[in-house]
């Protein structure tokens, strides 16, 4: 079967909107209703977070959603079951920390992803070199993309290396920070967006971290191919706001 993310990225080059939510939050079964809800909006990519006790790269909003989801009883086997229950037309990317991937078993994890029609993974604490020597073949054979992060501190040279090995979008962390900031972009951030645009990379750029409304989404779309929104979507879900309205507001 074709990888939905590969298809999407080959046809759409701008204003790509990715929404992140935490599996099993606010209710255990919410995973399914949120997936279905998102599938009927004009979101492009759905990123599903695998709850973890110790999400080091995440801010308070996502931390809390992780804690609640774990209390609700979400586990990886259950998440894979939920994903298989629904038939989602949009590409799905799973985001989780390396230890869960390890404990589940790399091979089993990738096989389950394939069975659940997952297009790729984001594992922020899995270093690129370690991925290449240990898991690259496994990912390839299961038709899964791995996603690499770059940050304002990443050198041009390393960005180019990452661009060379990337098979999907590059996750450009927009801020020297953890997730969940709601401030306007500062000059240093904008300079960094420009620097990335000037590099004219082959891989599409998705900016994430600190993108939370129409203004910040539109801004990053000027410099890259799209943006990823997490914490502010989680807040909306927590309040029980309509998914359709949330997406409409972001699209503007």
């Amino acid at each position, binding site marked *: 079967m074709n990888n939905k993310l590969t298809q999407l990225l080959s046809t759409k080059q701008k204003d790509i909107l990715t929404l992140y939510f935490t599996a099993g939050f606010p209710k255990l079964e919410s995973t399914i209703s949120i997936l279905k809800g998102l599938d009927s909006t004009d979101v492009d990519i759905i990123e599903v977070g695998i709850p973890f006790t110790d999400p080091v790269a995440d801010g*308070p909003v996502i931390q809390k959603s992780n804690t609640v989801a774990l209390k609700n009883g979400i586990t990886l086997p259950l998440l894979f079951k939920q994903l298989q229950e629904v038939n989602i037309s949009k590409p799905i990317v799973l985001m989780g920390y390396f230890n869960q991937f390890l404990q589940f078993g790399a091979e089993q994890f990738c096989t389950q992803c394939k069975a659940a029609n997952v297009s790729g993974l984001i594992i922020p604490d899995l270093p690129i070199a370690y991925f290449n020597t240990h898991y690259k073949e496994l990912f390839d054979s299961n038709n899964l993309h791995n996603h690499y992060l770059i*940050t304002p501190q990443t050198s041009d040279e390393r960005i180019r290396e990452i661009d060379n090995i990337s098979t999907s979008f590059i996750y450009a962390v927009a801020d020297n920070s953890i997730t969940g900031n709601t401030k306007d972009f500062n000059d240093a951030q904008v300079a960094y967006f420009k620097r990335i645009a000037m590099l004219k990379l082959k891989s599409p750029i998705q900016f994430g971290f600190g993108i939370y409304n129409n203004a910040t989404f539109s801004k990053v779309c000027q410099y890259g191919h799209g943006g990823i929104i997490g914490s502010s979507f989680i807040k909306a879900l927590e309040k029980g706001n309509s998914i359709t309205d949330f997406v409409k507001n972001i699209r503007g």
Partner: protein
Amino acid sequence: MSRYTIDSEGFYGEFGGAFIPEMLVPNIQELQENYENIINSEAFKKEFISLLKNYVGRPSPLYYANNLSTHYNTTIFLKREDVNHTGSHKVNNTIGQVLIAKHLGKKYIIAETGAGQHGVATATVCALMNIKCKVFMGAKDVERQSSNYNRMNMLGAEVIPVTSGSKTLKDATNEALRYWIANPNAYYLIGSAIGPHPYPDMVTKLQSVIGDEIKQQLTNEYQQNKPNYVIACVGGGSNAAGSFYSFLEDEDVKLIGAEAHGKGEETGKSAATLNLGKKGVIHGCMTYLMQNKDGQIKEPYSISAGLDYPGIGPLHAHLYRTNRAQYIPVSDKEALKAAYFLTQKEGIIPALESAHALGVLEKLSFKKKDIVVVTLSGKGDKDIETYIKNSVK
């Protein structure tokens, strides 16, 4: 290269490495590229050795414990890290790392702390060297260890109570890492031989003064060639790593780590990571950790706040896996008993952490002529309340 040192990627065998998000890569790389040069430089060595001598009071005594030896019918020495300034071995590491931070031109220090011993040692050295410091401490620990919280404040540190997760050491470490991501100008001073490469190796080397002194003191003061046993307690594993380091290549020397076994395995209230944990990644490092089958990290339990860390330094994971060292679980009760015994026999009140190392003496059988060195990692002043509450007749 030895079997027991790190490779170029920071692995001891299959353990160690740097499993960090990209946001931390520049900071970690800077440290990886520079720490060895700094530690080996004459300027660093001169300052480090001078401070260890004149400020900390090193060398710490290697004390022949006559009464204890008679009781166990063997020859027992105590390596007295408890007499160090600030009352534990932690200060060896904080002096070293604050010097490293200064060499790197860092303007302020961040640290995590559990019981507060590392936090106090950090705040102390930062006061001495006139450098700002921020200490992350689980809100639960702030309550449990209020005297250390107050000491840190008096020393001028900004202590930040951490309310995320389980509000203890692992969450304080998470929060310090998050802060570091957002504030890459800070220097993160990790308190044990844990975390991403190069911390485990760097902390081990800074603490190796313990084992080096043991070796010299046995030779010079007691005309002994080498010990038969070196015993130390293991939280993250820094005092044990420092005690073992000089003896790793000498396979005749038995190395014993004491893990905190809390209320025992049946109760699920333990911190014996190597005995109960499984391989995985915690705080940037491949090692053993306490976790459930889904890879969620479990909150460990021990009566001693300095030993309830869910992971363990990768050197120890490697020594365990290769059978170079043995790790023995010691329960709350056994540690309390050992603490009371040492106090009554030798007039030394040990830290609860160190009491776990003493608990091992009950569990092994020694020959009369065996030389047994136990590292007394800290003093018991901070634990008096717990000792009184749990008095052992």
